[in-house]
């Protein structure tokens, strides 16, 4: 039955590709033919999974790039095949008919809520957890709820590769014997001694709820913490960003390996570091990893440059319902240094499910846009009124803020009246509504 299930999966996938169909059907048929199929195939010695709220796709992409540059054969699931059926399709596609995976490494981007189901069928050898934030709370509840769910996805023996700077993620090491590799960003010139952002998820220890103490913050609850109540603390990382320059877009890993970054910003730094740490744990040496990471431009289309009439601009893809991804885009726009016009679009809150929930707008640090170089702000889309309410509580001079619900009219206004460089900030679900109205110059490269 094993061979039949694999064959059926391969045939259906081939047919599906011709028809442009999704990736879950072949896997679901294979699982029907043989529910234990995933236990019967021979996986490579290295199966690495990446989960967390933000940075999964970028981290996975960078790991794959580094491994391939170093001559490894890598199979990895692209976005969208997170659920067990999709993962089955993906794994069986990599198999011979005899059921042996052809790749040296299986690399999985895992949805936080599905990982526990997926890893019932097989167990990763390495498990990277990047961070846990407020993300898609309409589905995810809250970060501690996701933490509890993820607990069920961790099995004995798996090496955990954890963000030492995230106090909630570091709780995964509590009470279990798994080997752990910690990665973290050391104190840098731009580390902050006071928390920034609209809310303080780091204010209390996630383990015992005692007020937490921080030596410094990188952003939100990410930094160097210690709980005087229970002793929960940041572990000294084995892999660290030891120096960095946001202006010159480079970082130094483990004291001596320089990586030039295509995208500036602390968030991207963490993704790069997570990829570095994962590749080290898989057995590669530091120098070739750093060389492969240096100058690598992400291919996932999150940053798109365009021309809008006379003006040049960049679209920064954020995620609705994820205030940290918005904060990240806002920081990039403000750090640009030139005069800028910022258009924020919230039209369809999700492309995958229905919701009209806008509470997350109150968690975004829009206050940061109150900078002299931010000349104009345009709020667009179906939820532009909610944005307008939110902005009415920001200390931004009202003459700089314009509410133009109609997306076409908003883009036209920017073309005609925008000042300086243009930034569009919106979600995957909405970005094409902007990009179809401008001339895209370079997609998917940053």
């Amino acid at each position, binding site marked *: 039955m094993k061979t039949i299930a694999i064959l059926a999966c391969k045939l259906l996938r081939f047919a599906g590709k011709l028809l442009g169909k999704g990736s879950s059907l072949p896997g679901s048929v294979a699982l029907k033919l043989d529910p234990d199929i995933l236990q019967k195939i021979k996986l490579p010695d290295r199966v690495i999974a990446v989960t967390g709220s933000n940075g999964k796709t970028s981290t996975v992409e960078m790991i794959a790039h580094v491994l391939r540059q170093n001559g490894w054969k890598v199979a990895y699931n692209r976005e969208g095949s997170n659920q067990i059926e999709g993962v089955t399709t993906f794994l069986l596609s990599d198999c011979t008919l005899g059921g042996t995976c052809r790749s040296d490494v299986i690399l999985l981007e895992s949805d936080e809520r599905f990982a526990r189901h997926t890893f019932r069928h097989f167990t990763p050898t390495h498990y990277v957890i990047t961070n846990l934030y407020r993300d898609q709370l309409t589905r995810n509840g809250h970060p*501690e709820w996701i933490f509890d769910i993820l607990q069920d996805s961790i099995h004995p023996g798996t090496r955990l590769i954890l963000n030492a700077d995230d106090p909630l993620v570091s709780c995964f090491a509590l009470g279990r014997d798994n080997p752990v590799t910690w990665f973290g960003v050391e104190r840098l010139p731009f580390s902050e001694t006071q928390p920034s952002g609209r*809310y303080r998820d780091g204010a209390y220890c996630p383990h015992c709820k005692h007020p937490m103490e921080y030596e410094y913050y990188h952003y939100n609850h990410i930094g160097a913490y210690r709980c005087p109540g229970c002793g929960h603390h940041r572990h000294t990382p084995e892999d660290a960003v030891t120096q960095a320059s946001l202006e010159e877009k480079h970082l130094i890993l483990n004291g001596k390996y320089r990586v030039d970054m295509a995208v500036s910003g602390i968030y991207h730094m963490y993704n790069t570091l997570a990829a570095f740490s994962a590749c080290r744990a898989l057995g590669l040496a530091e120098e070739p990893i750093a060389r492969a990471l240096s100058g690598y431009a992400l291919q996932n289309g999150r940053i798109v440059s365009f021309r809008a009439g006379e003006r040049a601009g960049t679209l920064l893809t954020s995620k609705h319902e994820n205030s940290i991804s918005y904060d990240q885009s806002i920081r990039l726009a403000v750090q640009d240094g030139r005069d800028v016009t910022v258009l924020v679009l919230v039209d369809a809150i999700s492309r995958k*499910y229905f919701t*009209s929930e806008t509470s997350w707008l109150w968690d975004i640090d829009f206050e940061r846009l109150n900078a002299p170089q931010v000349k104009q702000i345009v709020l667009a889309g179906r939820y532009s*009124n909610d944005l307008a*309410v939110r902005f009415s509580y920001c200390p931004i001079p009202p003459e700089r803020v314009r509410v133009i619900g109609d997306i076409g009219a908003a883009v036209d206004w920017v073309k005609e009246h925008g000042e300086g460089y243009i930034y569009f900030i919106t979600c995957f679900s909405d970005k094409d509504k902007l990009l179809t109205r401008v001339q895209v110059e370079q997609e998917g490269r940053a």
Partner: protein
Amino acid sequence: MKILYLYPDLMNLYGESGNLCALERRLADQGEDVSVDRKAPGEALEIAAYDWIYMGAGTERSQKAALEHLRPCAGALREAMDAGKHALFTGNAAALLGREITDAAGQVWQGLGLLDVAVRERRDTRYTGDAIARHPELERPLVGFFNHCEDWEGDVEPLLQVVMGRGNREGDSGEGFRKNNFLGTHLIGPVLVKNPHFHYWLLSRLLGRTPEPREYLYEEKAWQVTYDALARRKDQPAE
């Protein structure tokens, strides 16, 4: 007007801070002098000194920490409630006022005992979803979002009746509670921002008079957009 904002960092699931921003502005627009005390767990509380108390939603673990810190004030809260003081508890903050909370691990936490409600938290089920709920004194319903894992058993006068979304327990459209001027709802986030008419109603009660007319155009439009989207959605099967 003295306002007590309880545990703004601990009890903040997402966007709860908007409620205080909005209330402060509206009171100021009515010519009131407003002072807001933001108190963290462990800080001394003089419950009787305030005209209005607010606490928002938190994670289940944060809620238990809040409960332990608030426990010494249970008597003062009851006195405030009996004396007709005003308070709003959103999300799982409302459950603190009940008789007890049984958490997902089965541990029973004694509540503050202001309401005859026993709360049970689910382990695997979370009630997340958009909501429409009617208020008996308001023509237009409230819109918002639920994000909790509670079932309530007991006898309380509900604040709202759900039209879309789940009430305090399965098969019961009653949502939240209302006891004197203490109000509670499972709606999370900036409830007062999203529902300008409810905010107006609350303001009238708090001021004890009809508020001066003021226009909050974007709030009104935002409510309409969300209400229309939810009303269209309400009768469709769930995804």
